């Protein structure tokens, strides 16, 4: 056993470093080239380090819509998240702890939403949004954002709430507490770990959402970051380093969130597929 372990470890480490290179090289090129000016980029090769750090790619973003995009994204994500957590945990409570008719039917209806691609709803959602006058407004994004993230949110929260001992709830009921009280004072606070996991997951998905923004937003000032990025692509075709800078800045918030939350984010993002 001891004889075999070192060679096995060597192979594993070499493989690990190789994959590390594959994972990180696109990002290394992104960072490296975002600090070049476009002359230097087109004269040289993307493999060369910048001769000196050129910050204009970043500072020139101040004169673009970038801050608009960022603010829009932050607003949409926060409002959607609040609604998702509240509506999702209330729904999950009913589906996990209450007995009522049609319970299974309603649960299955939500679960089916996990596998169905959202793209099939695009045309109707576009029509609905136009009809209720929210087309080309960031508020129009919140409905679909909540709608298509509810299935996984409810699924994760429901399976967590089912494991909370029923005796806690029974005791409160004997003391005359209403369902409403029990939910807010007992079940909701006890579900914090699952709510955190699901909120992180939803946040990553919403921050990166593209297709509804593409369909429901038209004016530049109402765009979210992903849509804005797509737009910069057209604007900066002749200036690849500037594009790199925009890309880096737009992904930075999530990378920071990841650096802070680490394992928690991984857990959140795979909670739907990995039990426990």
């Amino acid at each position, binding site marked *: 056993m001891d004889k075999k372990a070192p060679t096995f470890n060597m192979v594993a480490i070499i493989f*690990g470093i190789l994959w590390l290179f594959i994972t990180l090289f696109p990002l290394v090129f992104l960072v490296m080239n975002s600090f070049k000016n476009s002359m230097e980029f087109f004269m040289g090769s993307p493999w060369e380090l910048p001769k000196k750090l050129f910050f204009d790619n970043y500072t020139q973003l101040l004169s673009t819509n970038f801050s608009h995009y960022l603010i829009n994204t932050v607003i949409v994500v926060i409002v959607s998240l609040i609604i998702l957590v509240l509506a999702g945990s209330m729904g999950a409570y009913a589906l996990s702890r209450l007995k*009522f008719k049609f319970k299974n039917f309603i649960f299955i209806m939500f679960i089916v939403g996990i*596998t*169905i691609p959202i793209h099939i709803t695009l045309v109707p959602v576009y029509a609905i949004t136009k009809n209720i006058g929210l087309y080309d407004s960031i508020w129009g994004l919140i409905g679909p954002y909540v*709608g298509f993230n509810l299935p996984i949110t409810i699924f994760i929260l429901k399976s967590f709430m089912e494991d909370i001992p029923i005796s806690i709830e029974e005791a409160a009921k004997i003391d005359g507490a209403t369902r409403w009280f029990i939910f807010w004072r007992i079940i909701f606070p006890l579900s914090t770990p699952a709510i955190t996991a699901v909120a992180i997951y939803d946040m990553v998905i919403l921050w990166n959402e593209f297709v509804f923004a593409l369909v429901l937003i038209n004016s530049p000032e109402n765009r979210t970051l992903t849509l804005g990025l797509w737009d910069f692509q057209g604007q900066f075709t002749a200036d690849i380093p500037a594009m790199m800078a925009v890309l880096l800045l737009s992904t930075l918030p999530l990378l920071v969130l990841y650096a802070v939350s680490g394992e928690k984010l*991984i857990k959140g993002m795979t909670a739907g597929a990995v039990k426990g």
Partner: protein
Amino acid sequence: MKSKVERHNLFVALAFLSPALFFYLLYFIIPVPMSFFYSLFKWNGLTPNMEFIGLKNWNFLFQDSIFWKSVINNFVLVIMSILIQIPMGILLGTLVSSKLKSAKIFKLLYFIPMTLSAVAIGLIWIFIYEPNFGVINTFLNNVGLSNLACGWLGDTKTALGAVIATICWQYIPFYMIIFSAAISSIPKELHEAAYIDGANGIQTFFKITIPLITNTIIMACILALTGSLKYFGLIYVMTEGGPSHSTELMAVYMYKQSFTNFRMGYGSTVASFMFILSIGLTILTLFIGVKRNGLNG
């Protein structure tokens, strides 16, 4: 008396469910029959006048060679996902759940692509594949392999492969986590017993690890299958389905028909087809699940 209690229970439950039901019904459930309804019309989506044309869109769908090309591409994507992402996911999952000191750091760094948006990933990889200034071609030119340099995303022969490579780059970490969770849950005694019996690392991997994660492998295949219908952003950003439809996928084709060509009726037909297909896949999934559980139990 009993029905009164029942009605009360239903009322309380619906009160709790109402916010979720509101959003879910309006933005997810109701759009499904609406899609089928729209598929019977010729409609540009800009003006309210819709012309009823019966099943003409459906007829056209079955003869639309570009659409069937997109269906085939979807399946190529599933097969490649299963052949590349799952084995790599198992290998990396084994690595990051091993006792190596660096395993945890590897895991955290490997997961980074999963946190990026499809749009950002698409744009980064456009730059990597770029024919003149891109990372790959400049490398090939510098090491004297310029005959291997090509247009990657602009060439019908390489575009789909290039896009699939990017998708693998993004999603392998996801499968890695699924498998590392499965591998960590295998009792340590099994591996120790195998070592004592003289089995080497490779033998234990194939004789113990793989058989014990079979269920996870099946689940991962299902995820790859249902997930493939959802690919949109990355492909739309990188190729818009081109060149000459070589990277066309159902979701991309549906979007372009509806919102680029303003054929919302026909776009809805494609969407409805996708719905039927995904429901079929979901039922198949449940069926496999029931059958396996039945066998195991």
